[in-house]
C-alpha cells in the first residue's frame, strides 16, 4: 500500500538542509542582472522614452523597450497585456494602465548598476483619465481602460432559470443584502525570480517558479514569435503559489533578454515588486435577494455581482464563471436570476487565487443562508440540510450535479464534531462559552461549500504521464515523467506514491522527473485542486501500459498516457445553462468559534473545525497541512489582510503593512476531519482538496461574530476598526458605513 500513508516528503531533506535551490538561489557564469522599470503610475500614454542616459552607464549592457518585443503581448485567456509598454510595437501598447505595467528592462553587469540605470530612464507621459471603481467603470462615458473591452465590460454571465418574481411572491421570508469582498494578495514567501540561459541544444531556457511549465513556454514562444520547441522551461523549487504564479511574471522578460544578448541572465524581484507585479484576488460587490418558504426551502435567488478585474483580463473570465456557478452555494434553487459582470479598471489586475472566485461567491451565499436561518428561527445546519444537493440534484445552471455528491454527509460530520446535536426539533447549535470578562463575547458560526476539481467550461482538460520500467526479471527502477509543478503542496510526493501504488512496486524504486518541458508533455497547471486527481489518472494509465509492455518482455518497458476527463460545457450566454460546467466536485464544511473583544474590536478565531471530503487521502499528513494552511490563509482574508488600493496605487506594498497571519493570528485549534467518499472519476476515488478549506471560513467566521455580538458584517476583513465601528456605530463617525 503506497497511498493512504504519510511517507516523508521527497523534497524535505533538501529543504531542511538549505540545499534545495529556489529560483533566486541559482547563478550562471557570466550572468547579467535584470531590473524592471515599472510604470509606477496609471494611466498614461508614453509619448517618448529616453534610455540613453541609462545605456551610457558603464556596466549596462542593454535597455529593452516595447520595440524590442517581437509580439508584444501576453495573457492566459487573451493576449491583452504588453510585455513592455511603450511606443514602437503594436497599437495600444504605448499606454500604461496600472502601476505594475513594465516600461523598460535593463540588463547590466550587477544588480546595483541595473538599479541605477533604471533610475536614469526618462519617460514622458501624457496623463489619461483613469477609473478605479468597477461600478463607475461600467457607466456610460467612463474612461475606457483597454481598447479590447468596450464599455470596460470584460464578461457578463447570466443565469435565467424559472420564474423568480412568482417565487418571491410565494416566499415566506426574503433576505436581502449588499456584500463587498476585498482584494487579497497571494504573499507566497518566495518573491518572483529566475535565471535564463541557452542550453546545450540551443534552446532558450528559463528556470523559474510557476504553476504550469508548458503554459509558460507557450506564452514565451508567443511573445518572442518563436516556435515552442525553441523554448524550454524548468521549475526550481517553488516557494508557494496559490494561483499567483499562474500568469507570467519574470518568464518572458528573462527569455527576451537571454535571446537578445546570448548571455545568461538573472532576475529577483523584491517583495514590493512582487506585490506590484502580479495579480490579486478579485474584489466583488454583490446585491442579492434570497427567498425561502416557511420550512426553509429555497425558492429563489436574485443576484447582481460586479467584480473588479483591474487593467487586464488575466484569468478573470474563468474566475467569474466560477463565481457564477458557486453563487447559490451547494443548494437546489429552482428559480434564479443572476448577472455577473467583470469590469476593467485601472486597479491592479485580478485573477487566480486559491478558491478561484468560490470564496467570494460562497461568502455571499453562505451569509445569505445564515441570515435566512435567523429570519426563520432555524438552525444554520438544519436549513442547509434541507437544501443541499443530493445525488441527482440540478445545479442552478441546469445540469445534474456530477455523481458522488456528499455535501450532506460533510455538513453533518462537521456539525457533530463542533458539538451540534440532532434533537426532535432538528439540529441545535452548541452553547458558546462565556467569559468572566464582560468585554469578551463568544459565538459559533457555520458555513459550507464545494469546489470544482480540474479545468471547466469546455476547456480541453488533460494531463500526461510517462513511465519507464527498468530491470530484468524484476523492476529495479521505475522512472516517472510528469510535468506537474510541486508548488509546496506536496504534489511530487503524492505522484511517487500513486506511481508505486499503480505499479505495485516499492516506493524506493520510483524516481520522479518533473517540471521540465525538455522531457515532458503538458500535464496541466497546479491549480483548480486538480493535480492529484489529474496526475493520478494519468499515472495510472501510464502504469497500466508500462506493465503491459513489461509483460511483453520489453526492456525498458515504457508506458505513456494522456488522461482526458469527461467533457465540460460553457454556460449558455443568455440562460447560463450548462449540461456539465465542471468535471467533478469536492465538498467542505466549517464551524468556527470566535472571541470578539467588544471594547477593541479584536476578533480572534478560537477553534475551527474543517470537514473535507477528499475522496481518498493519498497522504493524510500533507492533507491536514493543506487544511491548516488553507484555514490560516482564509483567516488572513477574513481578518488581518487589508489590501489597500487608492486611485490605482497599492498602499500595502510590504509585509509591514500587508499583514499575513503570524502565529498569534491563527486559531488555537484547527480540527481536520478527512472524509473519504470516493469520487467515481477519481484515481482510487481521489478528489482534489487544496482550495476547499479556504472557502467557508469567512462566512462561518462572520456568522460566529454575529452569534457573539448580534451584528452582521457585510464586508471584511474584520479589522478591529471595522468591527469596532460596526459594534458601536454611534461612537464612530460614519460607523454604519464601515461595516456595510
Amino acid at each position, binding site marked *: 500500500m503506497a497511498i493512504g500513508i504519510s511517507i516523508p516528503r521527497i523534497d524535505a*531533506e533538501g529543504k*531542511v538542509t538549505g540545499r534545495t535551490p529556489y529560483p*533566486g*538561489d541559482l547563478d550562471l557564469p557570466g550572468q547579467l542582472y535584470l531590473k524592471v522599470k515599472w510604470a509606477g503610475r496609471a494611466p498614461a500614454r508614453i509619448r517618448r522614452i529616453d534610455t540613453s542616459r541609462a545605456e551610457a552607464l558603464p556596466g549596462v549592457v542593454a535597455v529593452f523597450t516595447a520595440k524590442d518585443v517581437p509580439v508584444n503581448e501576453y495573457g492566459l485567456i487573451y493576449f491583452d497585456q504588453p510585455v513592455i509598454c511603450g511606443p514602437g510595437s503594436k497599437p495600444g501598447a504605448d499606454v500604461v494602465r496600472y502601476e505594475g505595467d513594465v516600461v523598460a528592462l535593463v540588463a547590466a553587469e550587477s544588480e546595483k548598476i541595473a538599479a541605477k540605470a533604471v533610475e536614469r530612464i526618462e519617460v514622458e507621459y501624457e496623463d489619461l483619465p483613469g477609473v478605479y471603481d468597477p461600478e463607475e467603470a461600467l457607466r456610460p462615458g467612463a474612461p475606457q481602460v483597454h481598447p479590447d473591452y468596450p464599455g470596460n465590460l470584460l464578461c457578463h454571465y447570466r443565469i435565467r432559470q424559472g420564474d423568480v418574481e412568482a417565487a418571491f411572491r410565494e416566499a415566506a421570508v426574503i433576505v436581502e443584502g449588499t456584500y463587498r469582498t476585498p482584494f487579497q494578495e497571494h504573499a507566497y514567501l518566495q518573491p518572483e525570480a529566475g535565471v535564463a540561459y541557452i542550453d546545450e541544444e540551443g534552446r532558450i531556457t528559463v528556470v523559474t517558479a510557476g504553476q504550469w511549465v508548458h503554459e509558460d513556454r507557450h506564452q514565451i514562444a508567443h511573445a518572442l514569435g518563436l516556435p515552442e520547441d525553441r523554448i524550454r522551461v524548468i521549475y526550481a523549487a517553488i516557494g508557494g503559489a496559490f494561483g499567483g504564479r499562474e500568469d507570467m511574471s519574470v518568464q518572458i522578460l528573462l527569455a527576451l533578454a537571454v535571446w537578445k544578448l546570448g548571455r545568461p541572465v538573472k532576475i529577483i524581484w523584491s517583495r514590493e515588486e512582487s506585490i506590484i507585479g502580479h495579480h490579486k484576488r478579485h474584489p466583488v460587490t454583490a446585491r442579492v435577494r434570497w427567498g425561502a418558504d416557511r420550512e426553509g426551502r429555497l425558492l429563489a435567488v436574485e443576484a447582481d455581482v460586479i467584480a473588479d478585474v483591474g487593467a487586464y483580463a488575466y484569468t478573470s473570465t474563468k474566475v467569474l464563471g466560477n463565481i457564477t456557478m458557486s453563487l447559490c452555494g451547494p443548494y437546489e434553487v429552482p428559480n434564479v436570476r443572476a448577472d455577473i459582470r467583470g469590469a476593467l479598471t485601472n486597479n491592479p489586475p485580478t485573477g487566480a487565487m486559491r478558491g478561484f472566485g468560490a470564496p467570494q461567491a460562497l461568502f455571499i451565499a453562505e451569509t445569505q443562508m445564515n441570515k435566512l436561518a435567523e429570519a426563520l428561527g432555524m438552525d444554520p445546519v438544519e436549513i442547509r440540510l434541507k437544501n443541499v444537493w443530493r445525488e441527482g440534484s440540478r445545479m442552478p445552471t441546469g445540469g445534474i450535479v456530477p455523481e458522488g455528491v456528499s455535501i450532506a454527509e460533510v455538513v453533518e460530520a462537521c456539525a457533530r464534531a463542533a458539538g451540534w446535536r440532532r434533537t426532535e426539533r432538528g439540529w441545535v447549535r452548541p452553547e458558546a462559552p462565556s467569559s468572566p470578562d464582560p468585554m469578551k463575547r463568544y459565538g459559533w458560526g457555520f458555513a459550507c461549500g464545494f469546489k470544482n476539481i480540474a479545468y471547466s467550461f469546455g476547456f480541453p482538460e488533460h494531463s500526461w504521464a510517462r513511465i519507464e520500467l527498468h530491470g530484468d526479471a524484476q523492476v529495479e527502477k521505475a522512472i516517472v515523467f510528469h510535468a506537474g509543478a510541486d508548488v509546496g503542496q506536496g504534489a511530487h510526493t503524492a505522484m511517487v506514491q500513486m506511481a508505486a501504488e499503480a505499479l505495485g512496486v516499492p516506493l524506493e524504486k520510483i524516481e520522479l522527473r518533473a517540471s521540465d518541458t525538455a522531457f515532458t508533455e503538458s500535464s496541466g497547471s497546479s491549480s483548480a485542486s486538480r493535480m492529484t486527481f489529474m496526475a493520478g489518472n494519468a499515472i495510472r494509465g501510464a502504469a497500466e501500459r508500462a506493465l503491459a509492455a513489461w509483460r511483453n518482455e520489453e526492456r525498458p518497458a515504457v508506458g505513456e498516457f494522456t488522461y482526458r476527463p469527461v467533457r465540460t460545457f460553457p454556460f449558455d450566454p443568455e440562460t447560463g445553462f450548462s449540461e456539465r460546467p465542471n468535471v467533478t466536485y469536492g465538498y467542505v464544511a466549517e464551524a468556527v468559534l470566535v472571541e470578539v473583544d467588544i471594547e477593541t474590536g479584536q476578533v480572534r478565531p478560537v477553534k475551527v473545525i474543517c470537514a473535507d471530503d477528499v475522496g481518498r487521502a493519498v497522504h493524510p499528513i500533507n492533507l491536514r497541512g493543506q487544511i491548516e*494552511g*488553507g484555514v490560516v490563509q482564509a483567516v488572513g482574508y477574513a481578518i488581518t489582510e487589508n489590501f489597500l488600493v487608492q486611485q490605482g496605487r497599492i498602499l500595502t506594498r510590504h509585509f509591514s503593512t500587508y499583514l499575513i497571519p503570524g502565529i498569534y493570528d491563527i486559531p488555537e485549534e484547527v480540527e481536520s476531519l478527512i472524509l473519504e467518499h470516493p469520487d467515481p472519476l477519481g484515481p482510487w476515488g481521489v478528489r482534489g482538496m487544496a482550495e476547499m478549506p479556504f472557502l467557508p471560513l469567512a462566512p462561518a467566521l462572520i456568522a460566529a461574530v454575529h452569534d457573539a455580538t448580534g451584528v452582521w458584517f457585510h464586508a471584511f476583513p474584520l479589522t478591529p476598526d471595522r468591527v469596532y465601528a460596526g459594534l458601536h456605530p454611534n461612537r464612530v463617525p460614519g460607523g454604519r458605513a464601515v461595516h456595510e
Partner: protein
Amino acid sequence: MPARKGKRTTGAPRQAAPRKAAAAVQPAARHRIRVTVNGRPCEAEVEARTLLVYFLRDVLGLTGTHVGCDTTSCGACTVLLNGEAVKSCTMFAVQADGAEILTVEGLAKDGELHPLQKAFWEDHGLQCGFCTPGMLMTAYAFLKENPHPSEEEIRIAISGNLCRCTGYMNIVKAIQHAAQEMAAR
C-alpha cells in the same frame, strides 16, 4: 538546470559569482571583515552597506538563507550571530566582523541531520520550505535557551517568522518533537 551557488554539478555551468564590483556606479568604500561561518573562518572585503544576508548568499554562496521581504517582517533570513538569532537582512555585514555565524547549512554535523531538521522533515513542518531555514535557526537558538518549552513558549519564539503555507501547526509540533529528542539524548 544550472547549479546553485557554491556547488558544481554536471551539465550546468556555474561559478562562484561574487557580486561584481560596483566601480561602474561609484567606488564604494570597502571594509575587510573576518567572520567564522559554520565553523569555517573566512575573510572578505565588503562594502559598508552590504547586508549580512547578501554577504552570506552572494559572497559565500550560502543560499539556504532566504530573503522573503524588505521590511524585517518574515524571518526567512534568520541566522545565528554569536549564538543569537538575528534577521540577517537587518544588519550590515561589517557589523558581523569578528562574529561566529551559523546558517542552516551548518546545522547538520558530520552528515547527521540536527534533530530539528529531522523533526521538520518527519513531522511535515514544511510545505514550500521557503520559510524553513529561518524557522529552523530561530528554533535552534530558542531551544538552546529553553530546552523544555511549552507550546505557548514555542509560539512566542517563532512569532517573528512568517509562513504562508503550513498554518504553523506542524511547525510547532516539529519543534516540540525536536525538543523531546534533544532532551532524551
